């Protein structure tokens, strides 16, 4: 992305990569650093933003940046192995290069949320866009009234960022709740679906912002349950995802109703989203 | 065409509990255009028409229904679909039956013997076009254009669609109901379009098709309108591997057009739809008809006539010609 051509990507080298989950649709996390020191310094993303990452000769894919800018001068992407581009990305190892352009889209208004309690509700790979919030709040903990994280996946093996949760549950200034769909051996956290766990925890809506991301079906029930718990539409945020090609509002396909997910999103307040039926298509 | 009988039959059919809708024709939005009609209740049969403007092939819609995931507890609508079918439409139905693209019990064919259809672009070119609605009728031998208060006699060969000039099966080859009497078959004209090209040498043909294929915009209307192009997963939409690049240039366009024609060899029922809808006016019909003729002459096979036939490309005869083999 040069000054006069937003389609030209930067090159970034993979510093480290590891698998978060296994299986056919495994998730691999890449920690990348821009090759150009100038880009490294000028790059400034906010929690919730995305970037177009890709492999030359294969294509590009819009992936959320799963680290907070407070973590350091690097980027993290957690990529599920799905199509042509993500398969190519999965073949990359530490030392390989990928292309990155961005950051794109709006972000979670974390500055406006100061002084409030933050509740994140994630499912599966949906934790990736939520992780920057968690990290951001963790490093600016004194500015926020509280942090609760609910995160679930199909099985223990499908949970992303597992290594980080142990440490988090040891901290007493935040609470971390994990759940899996079906009981399995060696699992000492909750068993059940995320929306149900939300009801069980019964968080108070007072001075709280709830952010959710996950599979569409989970989001639907989480939104219902948040309503039951007394959250107003303005207190609830979610992110959308659609097929994208350009990332900058030109190629046309990512709109949900009149909202271009790449530019007006991916972060939406439910008070906006509830009037856009296509968002839940 | 007996419209009374058509509407009566249609009303009877759509009133049945096991019928979802009837696909037929209604007046279009301007000029002598007609549009496909989806009739769901007996009250709407009044809009059904059958006129020389009904050139398109309705059998396309049999396989065009998108299957979306159903909410839990809901079942797919398994009711039958009724279809107004001319000779060529019915051949498409038969070919679909052969390929098991549809099942016989899922479709009701309302056969409409076809005295020949017009080509709208020929009509507009020779007799002009209007925003105001008009109508073309058969008058025995020729056509009558009813426009404003005027009735204009139009000689048959002035506006007859090419596929109809070459048609060998104007009467429905299968039907559950037949509207009116079968028409008398006419002698198909000589296929001069293909003949002229065959007379050229191979480089001449190459130049001709380069001119044509270069114009292709890859809108895929030829694919989508074709009653026999109904693969759920089309090679053209595949990205991994990408057999045919999405870039629009002569090379990819040619590869696309060859594969389209090849996939229809031995299946094309010569309804001429691909050529009719092409916004770049590429004479796709010539390729299809050439292949259809090769199949007919070399292999003695004609698709879309016998529902019990084996699909041409999925079968063989031990004595298939092999004079081209080294």
């Amino acid at each position, binding site marked *: 992305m040069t000054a006069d051509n937003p389609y030209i990507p930067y090159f970034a080298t993979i510093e480290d990569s590891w698998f978060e989950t296994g299986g056919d649709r495994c998730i691999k996390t890449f920690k990348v650093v821009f090759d150009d020191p100038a880009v490294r310094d000028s790059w400034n993303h906010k929690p919730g933003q995305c970037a177009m990452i890709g492999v030359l000769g294969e294509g590009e894919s819009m992936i959320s940046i799963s680290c907070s800018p407070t973590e350091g001068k690097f980027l993290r992407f957690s990529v599920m192995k799905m199509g042509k581009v993500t398969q190519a990305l999965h073949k990359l190892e530490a030392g390989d290069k990928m292309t990155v352009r961005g950051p794109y889209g709006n972000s979670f208004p974390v500055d406006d949320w100061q002084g409030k309690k933050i509740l994140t509700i994630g499912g599966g790979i949906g934790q990736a866009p939520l992780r920057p919030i968690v990290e951001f709040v963790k490093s600016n903990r004194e500015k926020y009234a509280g942090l609760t994280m609910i995160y679930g996946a199909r099985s223990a093996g499908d949970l992303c960022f597992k290594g980080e949760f142990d440490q988090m549950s040891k901290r007493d200034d935040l609470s971390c709740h994990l759940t899996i769909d079906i009981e399995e051996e060696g699992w000492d956290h909750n068993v059940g679906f995320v929306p149900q766990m939300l009801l069980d925890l019964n968080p108070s809506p007072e001075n709280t912002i709830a952010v959710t991301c996950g599979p569409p079906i989970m989001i639907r029930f989480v939104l219902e349950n948040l309503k039951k718990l007394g959250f107003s539409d303005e207190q609830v945020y979610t992110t959308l995802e659609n097929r994208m090609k350009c990332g900058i509002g030109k190629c046309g396909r990512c709109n949900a109703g009149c909202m271009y997910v790449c530019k007006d999103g991916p972060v939406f307040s439910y008070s906006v989203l509830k009037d856009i039926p296509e968002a839940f298509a | 065409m007996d419209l009374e009988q058509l509407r009566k039959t249609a009303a009877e059919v759509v009133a049945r509990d096991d019928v979802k809708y009837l696909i037929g024709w209604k007046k279009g939005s301007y000029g002598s255009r007609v549009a496909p009609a989806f009739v769901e209740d007996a009250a709407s049969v009044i809009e059904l028409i059958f006129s020389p403007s009904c050139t398109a092939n309705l059998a396309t819609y049999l396989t065009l229904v998108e299957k979306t995931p159903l909410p839990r507890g809901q079942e797919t609508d398994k009711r039958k679909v009724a279809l107004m079918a001319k000779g060529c439409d019915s051949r498409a139905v038969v070919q679909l039956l052969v390929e098991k693209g549809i099942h016989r019990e899922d479709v009701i064919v309302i056969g409409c013997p076809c005295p020949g259809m017009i080509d709208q672009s020929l009509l507009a070119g020779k007799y002009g076009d209007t925003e105001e609605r008009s109508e073309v009728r058969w008058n025995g031998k020729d056509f009558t254009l009813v426009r404003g208060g005027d009735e204009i006699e139009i000689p048959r060969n002035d506006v007859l669609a090419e596929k109809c000039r070459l048609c060998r099966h104007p009467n429905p080859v299968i039907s559950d109901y037949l509207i009116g009497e079968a028409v008398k078959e006419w002698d198909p004209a000589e296929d001069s379009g293909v003949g002229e*090209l*065959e007379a050229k040498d*191979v*480089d*001449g*043909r*190459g*130049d*001709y*098709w*380069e001119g044509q*294929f270069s114009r292709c915009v890859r809108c895929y209307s030829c694919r989508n309108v074709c009653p026999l192009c109904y693969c759920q997963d089309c*090679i053209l939409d595949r990205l991994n591997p990408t*057999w*045919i*690049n999405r870039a629009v*240039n*002569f*090379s*990819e366009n*040619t*590869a696309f*057009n*060859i*594969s389209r*024609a*090849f996939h229809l*060899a*031995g299946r094309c029922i010569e309804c001429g739809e691909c050529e009719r809808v092409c916004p770049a006016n590429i004479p796709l019909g010539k*390729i299809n008809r*050439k*292949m259809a003729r*090769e*199949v007919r002459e*070399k*292999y003695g096979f004609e698709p879309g006539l016998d529902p019990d036939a084996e699909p*041409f*490309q*999925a079968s*063989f005869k*031990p004595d*298939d*010609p*092999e004079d*081209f*083999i*080294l």
Partner: protein
Amino acid sequence: MSENYEPNIVAFLCNWCSYAGADLAGTSRVQYPANIQVIRVMCSGRVNPLYVMNALQQGADGVLVSGCHPGDCHYMEGNFYARRRLGMLKDLMEFVGVDPRRFHMSWVSASEGNKWKEVVEKTVEDAREAGPFEGFRRRQIDW
């Protein structure tokens, strides 16, 4: 056409007969033109017409498909399907202006090392006569 033009030929050979035949030609030290790039497929019936087109698009000047003799197919009838389909492909390509000398099909059994040599010679000779393929080959990307 330049004096030292050498055609590129892509050959799809069935695993059971023609590939073995080509192998035999090699082990028997039968000399045949080196213009041929062999791609082994399990059966000539597996050769999708798209392969032929793609080869031509990507720079082949000629394509050869070779399989077992009719009746000898390892999979009973694969080559019968191939014969029907590729025969039609040949007609089709000829009609849209691809020189028929660019596409050949042959039956070569595992014992016919010498026939393989003849087939290759014929294919290369035909492609040489037809000259470099310029038809719908992917041209150099041009702005």
